[in-house]
């Protein structure tokens, strides 16, 4: 009977402590009954017979799971809400982190573009891990309480209030909203950073736009603010309407025109020539900046074109 004892102990190890004794006691009684029935058929049982019966009952972990089925970490009724919270919080964390790192980058003499990239994405991964863990733990605690069977799907909904059925793209993805929001806030920080920096910090800055370029960008501020308001509007509505699409087309087309206009102006940058001496010459850097601006302009131009076509088809 040593085998039976070992088997019961192995099952009990997989069970919650409060249920171990009771289930172990009941499982022992059931196994002993089966062994008695087997002995009636076959006569005296050998260790091999007992082992075969236990093997037939299944792995101790499987048996324990049949008695106490494993619970998901987060209850299924919370899953949609959990995912939505996760995307929202991660999006907001990214925007806040972008502002922090960009401000530091602009005021730092030692931080190049590559270090900026590492700081932006490496730092965000840190914050995202913290955010993910906190949200998951909060939902785990909620799931341990009696779960609400219809979270977010209450009985008060009205079929008449459902949005009209439209094409798949009409639903605005959270990642698109946060990408736009992060881009607009990045631009605002880059344009207005001289206002909140000391003369010393400005002198040390790795990136200095020419006064002509900064003036054009400063005139574009209302457009960027409009972009932020538009993103927040999208966050609230989450469904493209004709008005929202038209605003989006207008915004992107204007941004593309401004980027192309900037690409045609010279000089674009106000560079510390001593720092770049022997690495790049001024013309090479200016040309690279111009090409970068043309590539940047292609993105809003593409979105403006795509959304114009969508606007024509949207009733």
């Amino acid at each position, binding site marked *: 009977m040593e085998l039976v004892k070992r088997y019961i102990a192995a099952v009990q190890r997989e069970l919650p402590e409060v249920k171990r004794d009771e289930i172990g006691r009941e499982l022992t009684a*059931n196994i002993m009954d089966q062994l008695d029935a087997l002995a009636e058929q076959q006569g005296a049982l050998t260790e091999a017979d007992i082992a075969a019966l236990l093997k037939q009952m299944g792995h101790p972990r499987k048996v324990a799971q049949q008695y106490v089925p494993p619970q998901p970490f987060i209850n299924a009724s919370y899953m949609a809400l959990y995912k939505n919270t996760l995307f929202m919080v991660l999006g907001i964390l990214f925007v806040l982190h972008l502002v922090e790192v960009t401000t530091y980058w602009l005021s730092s003499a030692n931080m190049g573009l590559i270090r900026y990239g590492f700081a932006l994405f490496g730092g965000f991964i840190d914050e995202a891990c913290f955010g993910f863990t906190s949200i998951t733990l909060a939902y785990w605690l909620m799931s341990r309480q009696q779960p609400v069977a219809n979270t977010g799907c209450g009985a008060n909904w009205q079929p008449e209030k459902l949005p009209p059925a439209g094409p798949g793209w009409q639903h605005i993805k959270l990642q698109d909203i946060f990408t736009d929001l992060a881009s607009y806030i990045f631009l605002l920080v880059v344009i207005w950073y001289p206002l909140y920096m000391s003369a010393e910090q400005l002198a040390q800055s790795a990136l200095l736009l020419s006064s002509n370029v900064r003036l054009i960008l400063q005139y574009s501020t209302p457009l960027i603010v409009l972009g932020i308001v538009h993103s927040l509007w999208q966050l609230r509505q989450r469904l493209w309407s004709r008005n929202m699409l038209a605003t989006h087309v207008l915004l992107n087309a204007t941004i593309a025109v401004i980027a192309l206009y900037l690409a045609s102006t010279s000089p674009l940058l106000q560079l510390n020539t001593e720092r770049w001496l022997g690495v790049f010459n001024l013309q090479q850097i200016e040309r690279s900046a111009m090409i970068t601006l043309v590539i940047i302009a292609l993105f809003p131009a593409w979105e403006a074109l795509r959304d114009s076509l969508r606007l024509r088809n949207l009733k």
Partner: protein
Amino acid sequence: MTSAQLDKMRLELRRGVLVLAVLASLKQPHYGYSLRKQLQDGGIDIDEGTLYPLIRRLAEQELLTSEWQQGEGRERRYYQLSELGAQLLGQLTDEWQHLNGALGNLLGTASKEK
């Protein structure tokens, strides 16, 4: 249809019926092994890994009462239908008979169409 698909659907089909069979069998008290034997003798083969946890769950829902008793030199846990379980069994039996009749018609029509 593959054998795995058939097994899965058969399992789903049997799951609800097993509760009815267990409740109906426990009008008289039984311990785990004797209940399994009774079901087997009645033509319902159910493995112990399904039956024993199922009885416990029904007892936790207060559909069964249970009592430890000494018998043949060993303790056994006897289960029997509670008052609540008896009410539920009556309702489930009506539901089963209604479903069985409706399905009989449907399956009869389907077999004629073949």
